[in-house]
C-alpha cells in the first residue's frame, strides 16, 4: 500500500461521499414528487429531503447511554467507508480494491451498528424491528449472492470497475441485463428487499411496530440515520447498476441509469402492500432463489452468460 | 299505533301466559315493551332467546330518582322477523344488585360493566363487573345518576378560562 498516495485517495473518497449525498438526496426528493403524482397530488419541493435532514440536525434529541450513540456513529462510519470504495463513473478512490465482497461485508458493519444502537435504546418495538431486519437480510442476501457469484465466475474478476469495463466493450449488447436476464430479475427483487421498499418494508412497518428500529431516534441521531439511509440507497443502486447495466462512463449515462432503477423501484413499491415477515422469507426462498440458481447453472456449467 | 304487528301481539300473549307481565306498551309498530318482576327476567330472556330473539342489542339503565328505583332495560332483536322487544325490570336504588345475564347473552359482559360504572348497579356473577372501565381514578358518585351535577364537578376540578366579562349563561334549568 503506497503511503504517499493515501491522502489523495482519501480526498477523492470524500469527494465521492459528498457527491453521493447530494445526488441521492435530491433524487429521493424528486422521487417523492413522482410518487405524489401517483397519488393524484403535488408532492413537496425537490429539496424537501435536505430540509428534513438539516432540521433534524438542528434539534436536541435524546440519548439512551453510550451504546446508542456509538452504534449510530459506527453504522454511519461503516456505510461512509463503503461509499468511498464505490467506483463512480470514471474515477475510483482506491483503484484495484473495489472488490465486491468489501461492499457486502462493510455494509454488514452498518447493519450491525444500527441494530446494536436500536436494541440499545431499550424499546421492545426496536428489538422486534431489528429482528425483522436481520431475518429479511438473510432472505434477500442469498439469491443476490448466487447471481453475483455467477457473474464473477463468468467474468473472472470481482472488482466492480473491471466488471463495468467488460460490459461496456460491445455497447448495450454486452450488458449483463441482456446476457443474463433471469439473474437480473432475481437481483432486482433482492434490490427491493435491500432498499426496504414497500413489498418488503416489514422492518419499518409503521402500522404494526411504529417504525421499527427508528422508534427511539430523534434529533441528530435520526438525522444521521437518514443520511445513512441515503448512502445505503446510493450503494445498493450503483452496485446494481455496475453489475447489471454496465456501469457508466459518462455522467449522463450514470444519471439516466441510476434514476431509471431507483424510480422504477419506488413506483413498484407504491402499488404493493406490505408482506408479513415469514411471507417475505418464504417468497425469497421460492422464486428469486430458483431464478438465481438457474442463472448460476447456466453461467458456470454451460458457460452461456460470458 | 293501529297496525301493531300481529306476530308481536300473539307473542306477548303467550309470554304473558307463563310470566306475570306487569305492563305492555307498543311504542312503534314492530316493537313491544314488557315489564317484569326482577325475579323472572332471566327465565323470560332464556325463553325469548329460544323464540328467535338471538341478538341483545343493548342493556341500559334508567334512574327513576323520584320513586327511588333503577330500571334495567334489555333490548332484544329478532333478525328473521324484524321484531324488537324491551324487557324492563325495576330494582331498588338504595343497594342495586342484580344477577348477570352473560350466561344467556355473553355479549352483555361489557354492557354490565358500563352500567356498573355509571350507575353503581352490582352484577354478581360477572367476574370483573366492578373493575373501572371508562373513568380513571374517579373520586365521586357514579356519574350517570340523576343527583350528580357535572357542571359543579367540572368547575371544581378544571380551571375555566376567565373571561373579562362573565357572559356565559348558566346552564338551562331542569324541567
Amino acid at each position, binding site marked *: 500500500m503506497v503511503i504517499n498516495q493515501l491522502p489523495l485517495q482519501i480526498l477523492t473518497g470524500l469527494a465521492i461521499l459528498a457527491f453521493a449525498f447530494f445526488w441521492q438526496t435530491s433524487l429521493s426528493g424528486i422521487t417523492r414528487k413522482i410518487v405524489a403524482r401517483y397519488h393524484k397530488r403535488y408532492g413537496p419541493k425537490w429539496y424537501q429531503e435536505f430540509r428534513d435532514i438539516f432540521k433534524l440536525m438542528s434539534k436536541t434529541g435524546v440519548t439512551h447511554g453510550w451504546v446508542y450513540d456509538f452504534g449510530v456513529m459506527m453504522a454511519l462510519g461503516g456505510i461512509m467507508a463503503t461509499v468511498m470504495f464505490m467506483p463512480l463513473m470514471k474515477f475510483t478512490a482506491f483503484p484495484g480494491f473495489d472488490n465486491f465482497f468489501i461492499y457486502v461485508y462493510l455494509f454488514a458493519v452498518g447493519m450491525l451498528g444500527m441494530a446494536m444502537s436500536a436494541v440499545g435504546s431499550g424499546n421492545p418495538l426496536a428489538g422486534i424491528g431489528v429482528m425483522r431486519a436481520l431475518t429479511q437480510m438473510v432472505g434477500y442476501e442469498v439469491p443476490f449472492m448466487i447471481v453475483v457469484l455467477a457473474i464473477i465466475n463468468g467474468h473472472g474478476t470481482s472488482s466492480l470497475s473491471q466488471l463495468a469495463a467488460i460490459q461496456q466493450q460491445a455497447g448495450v449488447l454486452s450488458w449483463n441485463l441482456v446476457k443474463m436476464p433471469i439473474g437480473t430479475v432475481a437481483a432486482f427483487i433482492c434490490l427491493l428487499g435491500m432498499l426496504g421498499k414497500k413489498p418488503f418494508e416489514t422492518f419499518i412497518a409503521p402500522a404494526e411496530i411504529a417504525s421499527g428500529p427508528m422508534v427511539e431516534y430523534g434529533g441528530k441521531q435520526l438525522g444521521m440515520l437518514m443520511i445513512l439511509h441515503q448512502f445505503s440507497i446510493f450503494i445498493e443502486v450503483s452496485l446494481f447498476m455496475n453489475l447489471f447495466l454496465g456501469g457508466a462512463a459518462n455522467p449522463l449515462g450514470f444519471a439516466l441509469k441510476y434514476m431509471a432503477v431507483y424510480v422504477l423501484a419506488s413506483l413498484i413499491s407504491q402499488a404493493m402492500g406490505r408482506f408479513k415477515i415469514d411471507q417475505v422469507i418464504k417468497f425469497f426462498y421460492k422464486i428469486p432463489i430458483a431464478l438465481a440458481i438457474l442463472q448460476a447453472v447456466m453461467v458456470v456449467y454451460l458457460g452461456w452468460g460470458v | 299505533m293501529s297496525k301493531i304487528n300481529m306476530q308481536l301481539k300473539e307473542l306477548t300473549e303467550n309470554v304473558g301466559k307463563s310470566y306475570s307481565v306487569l305492563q305492555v306498551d307498543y311504542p312503534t309498530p314492530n316493537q313491544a315493551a314488557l315489564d317484569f318482576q326482577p325475579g323472572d327476567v332471566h327465565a323470560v330472556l332464556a325463553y325469548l332467546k329460544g323464540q328467535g330473539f338471538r341478538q341483545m342489542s343493548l342493556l341500559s339503565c334508567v334512574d327513576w330518582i323520584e320513586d327511588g328505583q333503577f330500571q334495567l332495560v334489555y333490548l332484544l332483536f329478532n333478525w328473521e322477523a324484524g321484531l324488537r322487544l324491551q324487557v324492563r325490570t325495576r330494582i331498588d336504588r338504595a343497594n342495586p344488585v342484580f344477577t348477570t345475564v352473560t350466561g344467556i347473552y355473553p355479549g352483555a359482559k361489557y354492557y354490565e360493566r358500563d352500567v356498573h360504572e355509571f350507575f353503581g348497579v352490582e352484577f354478581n356473577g360477572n367476574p370483573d363487573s366492578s373493575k373501572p372501565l371508562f373513568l380513571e381514578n374517579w373520586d365521586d358518585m357514579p356519574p350517570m345518576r340523576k343527583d350528580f351535577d357535572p357542571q359543579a364537578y367540572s368547575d371544581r376540578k*378544571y380551571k375555566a378560562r376567565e373571561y373579562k366579562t362573565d357572559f356565559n349563561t348558566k346552564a338551562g334549568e331542569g324541567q
Partner: protein
Amino acid sequence: MATADKEKKLKEGWEGISRFFRANSLWMLMYCTGCCAIELPQAMTSRYDMERLGMGPMATPRQADVLLVTGYLSVKTLRRVIYAYEQMSTPKYIVAFGPCTINGGIYHDAATVIKSLDQYLPIDVYIAGCMPKPEAVMNGFQDLIDMIKDKTADGWKRYRDNYDWYKQNQIESLGELRIKDEYHE
C-alpha cells in the same frame, strides 16, 4: 470579549439557518386525540396535500415536532398527551383545534372534559371552527410556519421556564399524572 460576541454571532447565524429548516419541515405526531382528527386525513391527502408545506405524519413522539391537539381532551387523554409531549424532542410546538381546547366548547358542562388546555400545556396556534375545515387547518399550519420564522413560536420555552406552574395545574386537576392500577402494572 471579541471571541464571546463572535461566538454569539455565529450561534445566532446558525440559529437563523436552522429556524429556516425547522419551519419548512414540520413533522406531525400521528395522534388523533379528539373528534377534529377526521379532517386531518383530508388535509394530508390529494386535495389539500399537507406535504407541500413540508409536513408529514410521524409515528413516535421522539421524531415529531408538532403535536396536534385535535378537539376536546378528556382527562384520560390529557394524561397521555402530557406524557407524549414530554417525550418529544425540543423545539416542539402545539397546535390546538376548535373551541373545545379554548373553553371546553360544547362540553363545557361535561364531567370528564377539561375546560381550557393552556393551563396544562403551552399552545402556539389555535385554529377556529368546530371541526375546522381543511382550508382552516392548512391556514393554521401556514401561520405556525410564519411564527417559527419570526421566532414567536416558543411554546416549549414557556413550558420549560414556568415548568412548575404547569405541573401544579396538571396535578391539581388530574390527580396523579402516571396511573398505576391493575391495567398498567
